[in-house]
């Protein structure tokens, strides 16, 4: 493992960005496949093959392109580009804040795409996505703040190399982050705006009007985003790379189990519970850290 991390550290920024660009969709797709298989097993089903997400996306790219208006896919392309960009920023070791804000920009494009088609289902989905964004944004910023308090730097490169274990200093922040990760991974109980599961009350929410290649692109973007988020989980355990990888995967499994065990929340509950949890876990952790110093 140490030799691997040495190799990674010897890469230049461009090489790291490229590696992320090429490897993240593969990792994200496999994770999504494991997710579906595991979900099925938890429900007592056999489940689709692990490669299923790739089949879905390849098929979507073979479908005819149907549009409601001719500009609707443009925000989706930008959503893809900026998500990849923020992931590349993160894995190249740039400022974590920059990655977060760039990801927010990408999310904004996605929401605008949902608004722009002026379809009722899509509109409601976008509106809910927006509420979700408002719900998780404080915690995401607090993660960066907490890491800065411990390591004294916002750059991912410095945080990774920090000797002490972040998780010991930031248990509350980590708990809060896991809570909002459920929103970011689009898992139940917070899969309000769009869902990977069958029928929901908004048809397919924000993605209702996007089909074929655009939907495939949204799916791939989601893989990139998941890898980026798991990268953020990695940072909490970065003092030991093996442990960190196990912890990231463990977090992902945990989210799947949560997904299987909860019914969907209303947006009101989603909103105030995530702000409250952020306040209880994240804020208190940061204030305690503040006094420790």
């Amino acid at each position, binding site marked *: 493992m140490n030799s691997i991390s040495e190799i990674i550290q010897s890469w230049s*920024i461009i090489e790291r960005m490229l590696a992320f660009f090429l490897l993240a969709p593969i990792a994200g797709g496999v994770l999504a496949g494991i997710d579906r298989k595991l979900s099925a097993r938890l429900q007592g089903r056999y489940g689709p093959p692990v490669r299923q997400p790739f089949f879905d996306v390849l098929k979507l790219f073979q479908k005819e*392109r*149907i*549009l*409601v*208006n*001719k*500009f*609707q*896919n*443009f925000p989706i*392309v*930008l959503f893809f*580009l900026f998500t990849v*960009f923020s992931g590349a*920023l993160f894995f190249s070791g*740039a*400022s974590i*804040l*920059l990655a977060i*804000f*760039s990801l*927010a*920009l990408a999310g*904004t494009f996605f*929401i*605008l795409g949902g*608004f*722009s088609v*002026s*379809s*009722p*289902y899509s*509109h409601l989905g*976008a*509106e809910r996505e*927006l*509420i979700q*964004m*408002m*719900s998780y*944004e*404080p*915690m995401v*910023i*607090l993660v*960066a*703040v907490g890491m*800065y*308090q411990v390591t004294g730097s916002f750059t991912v490169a410095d945080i990774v190399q920090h000797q002490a274990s972040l998780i010991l200093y930031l248990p509350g922040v980590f708990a809060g982050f896991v809570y909002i990760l459920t929103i970011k991974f689009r898992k139940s109980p917070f899969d309000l705006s769009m869902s990977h599961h069958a029928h929901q009350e908004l*048809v397919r929410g924000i993605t209702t*009007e996007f089909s074929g290649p655009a939907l495939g692109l949204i799916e791939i973007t989601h893989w990139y985003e998941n890898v980026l988020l798991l990268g953020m989980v990695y940072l909490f355990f970065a003092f030991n790379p093996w442990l960190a990888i196990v912890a990231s995967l463990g977090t992902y499994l945990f989210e799947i189990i949560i997904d299987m065990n909860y019914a969907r929340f209303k947006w*009101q509950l989603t909103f*105030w519970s995530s*702000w409250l949890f952020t306040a209880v876990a994240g*804020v208190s952790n*940061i*204030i305690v*850290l*503040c006094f420790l110093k």
Partner: protein
Amino acid sequence: MNVLIFLIVFPLVISVLALALPRGLLIKRIIGVIANVVLCAVPIYLLVTYLDKGPAYFHLESHLINNSMLVVEILIAAYIIYISIRAKRYLPVLLVFLQSVIMLSFEFTSGRGMQIEHSLFVDKFSIIMALIVGCIGSAICLYAIGYIPEYHEHYKEVKARPRYFFFLMYLFLSAMFGIVFSNNLMWIYFFWEITTLCSFLLIGYKNDQASQESAFRALIMNLLGGVVFAVGLVYLYHSSQVMELNKLIQLDKGYVLIPAVCIAFAGLVKSAQFPFSSWLTGAMVAPTPVSALLHSSTMVKAGVYIILRVAPVLENTVAAKMLMLIGGVSFLITAFIAISQSNAKKVLAYSTISNLGLIVACAGINTYSAVWAAILLIIFHAVAKSLLFLCVGIIEYKLGSRDIEDMDYLIMRMPKLTAIMMTGMAGMFLAPFGMIIGKLATLKAFVDSNPGMAIILAYGSGATVFFWIKWMGKIISIKHGVFKVMEDRVSRWEWITLGILAISTVAACIGFPLIAFRLVDPFILEVFGKTVIVDPFSVYMILLMMVGLLILLPLGLFFFGFVNKGYKRVGTYLGGANIDDVTFEGAMESSQTIELKNYYLEKFFGENVLFNAGVFISLILLVIMFGVAII
């Protein structure tokens, strides 16, 4: 020094000309254009001249100036008393009376022998402010040339007084230059009162019940600020024989805490922080150029300007903590309230207060990185917010409403205007644009000094993102079909201004390293002795994003608009019951039209509860602030 005097006197001359020349003359418009070019060019000249120099102080002592200022002050006081009595409102009379008594007794007793070493000064921060006032101010005056006739077309019952209007606008510009260049606190106070007067008269321009109400509320609050300002000045002179800004900062903190708190109080009133926010939201009845110029980009910035100037005195005191908390509370609560508003101008007003709150909080922290962030916020906010106000002003007349819910399909009805508006909104909160750079810097400053504030910022940005994106979503929703484009009757004057401001929103962002390293850094270095070190990689990445957007957006629009052909168009999904895109067949063969409305989350972010809470909390903080200063 001559340049400074010119900048103060020149708008004054123009304002007198605007009042004197009869209506409708071509020459008047020409003068207007020339004046604006000059007002734009001179601060840039100033910038070029002083780019590599430190602050410069100028001696200017003349009894003539002081006496004429005194006379004007008395005239203003008399005028306000006259108007207030006519409107049967006696609180302003009392305040003006109090203020005049304080100032006059001071002038005739100790003020006679007062020696002022440097009356005027210029440093990087004043140049930045002058650039904002000069460039944005003059652009907005251009806009007003096109706007005012339409305003009167729209409100037939309002008496057309364009000469009076332009007189006040230019007078205001003159006063603003006065505030940013004066070192003599008496002068700052004098110009301060003129901006109060201009604001009052311009809010009441429409002259109906609602605008009179708002105008007097603004007047009362700002006069209260003025009284406290005056008390602070008198106290300052009696305790330490000083009447100059640069000397005030160097004095021993024990002596000058009370005057500094008094001045900061006046700044809080002017920048409409809690508990004084209600005057700014009321001021939205004024014609749009007024809102854009006075109530978003310049006058309210004078408040934070003066707070930033006196902040060094408050350093490490409880008063500074209180200032920081008032800023934080204003930032957070007004960001929340903005979510529940559907009136476009009110959303803009609350967002203005919110951003000013952030700047005040930075001033309260007053570390080098906080002030650095505050100045960046001032610059970016001024450009983007005035642009948004002007856009809303046009939309209001074309649609006959300033309600966000009426702006459906705006991109089809006014494509160009929507594009400009999107630029402005992106400038307010999105990643590569200015405000977010400012917020990044602010976050860094907050975490370094006080992580509690970082928490406020985290929640506040969540709320900010919400109300901006839902507005953006509203205006860019597209309906298939042909719409009548409604923007053909927007006047050329208005387009020019919108163009200038939109370009500067983008340019301010691309030129951000230039602004930060050449303008802001030297100033911070002068004051604090060290400055912010920005990670160059982050700067490159921000620039890359910005340039990427600039290239991608037009390319993408062109591609999807013209090149992209291989698709099939279908209707939106309406459960299969489509009649067309927005109508579907309901029960009993009725045809139902879909209507899309935004969420306002009234239950969580109701205006009444939150506003009162904000006033209550900040009143307590204010009392503590004064309490510790006096003790």
